[in-house]
């Protein structure tokens, strides 16, 4: 097998099932690239950009959570939310960014900072990808 087989599984559907040459995944401890014969590996995904290389084409996806496992050139990503570049609603992401920033600045005691932080990160990833 001279290609990486990638499956992206969501609770409601299988999003992608295809072969690629090279994949870059945003892991919790930093982005990492996967080439052929990568070691067996499990990691959590942080909000970021997933890049799929196939020939000269690069597909970019905003991914927000989940896991990736690499095993014998088969890569499986399980996640709840993933959007391709052109599926992102730029306006909505912008609004969500403003809303969350406001919430963090208001610094009330009963704010769930962890949630706000995740939400802000998501919005930033979306904006970054759809802004280009």
């Amino acid at each position, binding site marked *: 097998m001279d290609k990486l087989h990638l499956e992206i*599984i*969501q*609770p*409601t*559907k*299988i999003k992608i099932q295809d072969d690629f040459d090279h994949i870059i995944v945003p*892991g*919790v*401890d930093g982005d990492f690239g996967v080439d052929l014969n990568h*070691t*067996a*590996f*499990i*990691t*959590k995904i942080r909000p970021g950009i997933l890049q799929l290389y196939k020939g000269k084409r690069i597909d970019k996806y905003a991914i927000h959570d*989940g*896991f990736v*496992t690499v*095993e*014998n050139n088969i890569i*499986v990503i*399980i996640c*709840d939310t993933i959007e391709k570049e052109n599926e992102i609603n730029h306006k909505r992401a912008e609004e969500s960014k403003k809303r969350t920033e406001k919430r963090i600045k208001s610094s009330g005691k009963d704010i769930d900072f962890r949630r706000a932080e995740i939400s802000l990160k998501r919005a930033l990833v979306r904006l970054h990808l759809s802004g280009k």
Partner: protein
Amino acid sequence: MATLKEIKLRIESVKNTKQITNAMKMVAVSKLRRAQENILQARPYADYINDMLKTLKLKNTTTSHPLLTDISGEGKTALIIVTSDRGLCGSFNSQIIRKAQSHIKKHFNVDIICIGKKGYDFFKTHSKKVIDSYINLFNEMDFSISKDVAEKILNLYLQEDYIRIDVLYNEFKSAIQQDIIVKQLLPIIPIESENVSKLDFLYEPDEDTIIEELGRKYIHVDIWRIMLESSAAEQGARMTAMDSATDNAADMIDNLTLFYNRARQAVITKEIIEIASGAEATQQ
């Protein structure tokens, strides 16, 4: 004996009822199909997480993450009871409530969590141990909704000292058959599987984080599946109930029509007799 007009009104009203029950049956059929599709689509995700958890559990016999470790002995448990939000679905809700009552009698210290309005309505008056309820969720089923429910249950389990959380729900077998199932939700017991990986994985950041996250995702998708199963079973039960209601209405219409025709005939006969006897009287 009822007058002709009364019978006619009765027939009209039964016809209306029949139309309504028939429409409800059609709606149930389409909702059932949607729930079934969702169940099928969630399967790869659920299977994959199960296989991963099984792999991790087999490899690390020493790990004692609370999501995966059985706590033996006596203690506080919780029971999640999944019923429907709406009625008119035969004995669907009453059966599950009966089962829940016997479960609660058998295990002494049981707190109750209700998903679905019918169960909540019953247990809020019959029991003082309802600690949480989620109602009116089944109308717009969405993964993010069930994920919120799952998160709250997970936090409850991790923060309070429950030794076990069980779930009681209807599983969809076929349109005419539902099975009531009691299942241990937490701590997680991964199902036996053949797809257990033998490779040694590198974990990032560390094993415990991975187990915790996988465990959470497992519960998310399990609650999602349970709610879908219950919803499919509910629609199946409603379909059967409405089907027999429609049949009964049709029978009733037949009987009433027969009755109506008899009454009509009796009236005509009576009129003819009156005319005939009147004519006879004038001839004499």
